[in-house]
């Protein structure tokens, strides 16, 4: 990984490093050559690491006070909110932390889409990222069930029932998931166990994600391969550490705003009513970060096909490196892709909006059009664009445009700044 051999200065360091090369790893991480043109969209990897650690630490603390039992879970959450010292703070950080985690991960994913970070040789990084994203959705769903409010209960009922769409074995799988004939205490205890497990799986995958990243190195806004180390790179420490740190501070301001000023705005009031298996809330909606996929599920009038469409919408992302046939990574040099990129962003936002609305009338029509466009983007537009698009000339190095580069690039850079 590192291009040069590292020898610790101290005698003890050398002795230790010969037996466990931790210092070599630390040296690799500090010296790691990073493209010098990374912009603030590249700071979300660090922010996401912060989010994961925040969720694990606050989650551990909550687990010390929470009771995973259908008769006691709801009261134990209220006990955390009212009686436990700073319990309200820790729970609000954990609950809003989930939303902040997804906010950051969506920016991170759309960064990759804009700058083509998923393309060769970074396919494995991308696929590991998609697996992490799937696990995040699983953890968020399982965690939302634990307070055992009305939305917890009915969210769990609706999502586990998705499996009943599988022909023949579906009903058996649902009963197996529940451990009974409906969502009940056995369901709650196993959901708690799995909710506790998944963050550590994510942590392991994050290590692989970063390891895979450090083999080819970071992509960059120009999207070209660079020599490492060279005039085009800076060492990770202190340059990127400071930049990531500043971005993290800005992010924490937003985080703190939600925690301290509107801690419940991203949740649902119905979840402060204890679970009741006889009454379904009038309007069941998942958390905001799952709404686009929920809209896709509801836009298909057939049960099995709706579930298939929703799962495909996520899994299609894993095939993205092969669906996008263009050799040019960065959208800065792809004038047509850049427009389709922003249409996709709008499309996903529209899906999110109609996902929160009742599935009827105009909303349903809009959801169907937006669902069709979502798949059209990945299955038709991206492959065709790779063949048809006239791309702009790309520079040979990051330094070239700064040291009197070509006029084409100047235009491109201008467009890039306009897009941000």
């Amino acid at each position, binding site marked *: 990984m590192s291009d040069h051999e590292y020898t610790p200065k101290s005698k003890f360091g050398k002795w230790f490093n010969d037996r466990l090369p931790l210092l070599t790893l630390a040296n690799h991480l500090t010296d790691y050559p990073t493209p010098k043109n990374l912009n603030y969209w590249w700071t979300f990897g660090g922010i996401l690491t912060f989010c994961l650690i925040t969720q694990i630490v606050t989650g551990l603390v909550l687990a010390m006070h929470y009771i995973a039992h259908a008769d006691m879970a709801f009261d134990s959450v209220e006990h955390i909110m009212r009686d436990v010292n700073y319990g309200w703070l820790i729970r609000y950080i954990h609950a809003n932390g989930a939303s902040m985690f997804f906010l950051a991960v969506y920016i991170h994913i759309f960064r990759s889409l804009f700058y083509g970070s998923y393309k060769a040789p970074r396919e494995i990084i991308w696929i590991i990222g998609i697996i992490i994203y799937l696990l995040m959705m699983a953890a968020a769903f399982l965690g939302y069930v634990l307070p055992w409010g009305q939305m917890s209960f*009915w969210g769990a*009922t609706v999502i586990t*029932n998705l499996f009943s769409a599988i022909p023949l074995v579906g009903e058996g799988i649902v009963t197996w998931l529940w451990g009974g*004939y*409906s969502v009940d205490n056995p369901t709650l205890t196993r959901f708690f166990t799995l909710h506790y497990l998944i963050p550590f799986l994510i942590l392991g995958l994050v290590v692989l994600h970063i390891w895979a990243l450090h083999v080819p190195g970071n992509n960059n806004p120009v999207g070209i391969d660079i020599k490492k180390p060279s005039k085009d790179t800076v060492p990770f420490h202190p340059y990127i550490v400071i930049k990531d740190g500043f971005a993290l501070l800005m992010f924490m301001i937003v985080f703190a705003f939600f925690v301290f000023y509107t801690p419940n705005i991203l949740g649902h009031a119905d979840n402060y009513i204890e679970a009741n298996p006889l009454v*379904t809330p*009038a309007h069941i909606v998942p958390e905001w970060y799952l709404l686009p996929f929920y809209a896709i599920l*509801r836009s298909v*009038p057939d049960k099995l096909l*709706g579930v298939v469409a929703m799962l495909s919408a996520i899994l299609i992302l894993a095939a993205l490196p092969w669906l996008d046939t263009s050799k040019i990574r960065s959208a800065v040099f792809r004038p047509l892709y850049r427009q389709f990129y922003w249409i996709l962003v709008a499309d996903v936002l529209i899906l999110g909006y109609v996902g929160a609305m009742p599935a009827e009338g105009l909303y349903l029509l809009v959801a169907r059009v937006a669902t069709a466009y979502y798949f059209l983007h990945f299955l038709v537009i991206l492959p065709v664009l790779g063949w048809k698009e006239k791309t702009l000339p790309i520079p040979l190095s990051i330094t070239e445009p700064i040291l009197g580069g070509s006029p084409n690039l100047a235009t491109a850079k201008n467009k890039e700044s306009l897009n941000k």
Partner: protein
Amino acid sequence: MSEKKTNRRDFLFTATYAVGAVGVGATIWPMIDQMNPDASVKALASTEVDVSAVNPGKTITVLWRGKPVFIRRRTQDEIAEARSVKLEDLKHPEKDEDRAVNPEWLVMLGVCTHLGCVPLDQKGEYNGWFCPCHGSHYDISGRIRKGPAPTNMEIPKYEFVNANTIKIG
């Protein structure tokens, strides 16, 4: 490959893999099966309900196996309406006579067959039930008429113990 003779070692490999696979399977199965409904859950399999206080045109909801069961005492108009529907108009064709053996009493699982929400009584375009989650409409026999649900609401096993008592399960 065809001229290569099977020798003792090939046999031993195959036998080892086969025994190993059985062993792994036998070890994994208890880990999977422990998640299925346990004996205490299965023990709560039947419920008896007193329906003497239910007037025509009213529905009561009782809990059976953790799920709501609708018991509706239907009016003569509702029975006539349910029995007049043509089978070819139904997404999941079932005669009302088969769903409500005693036409006055409709006993069914109050669980939408789409994704398991509890439909609302006397709502929807077919004068029966309406599921608020994803918009499935059921008629007065609990049959799916419009929306994403694939089948009619399920009729559980039940019997009249006497004129006023229904045993579900």
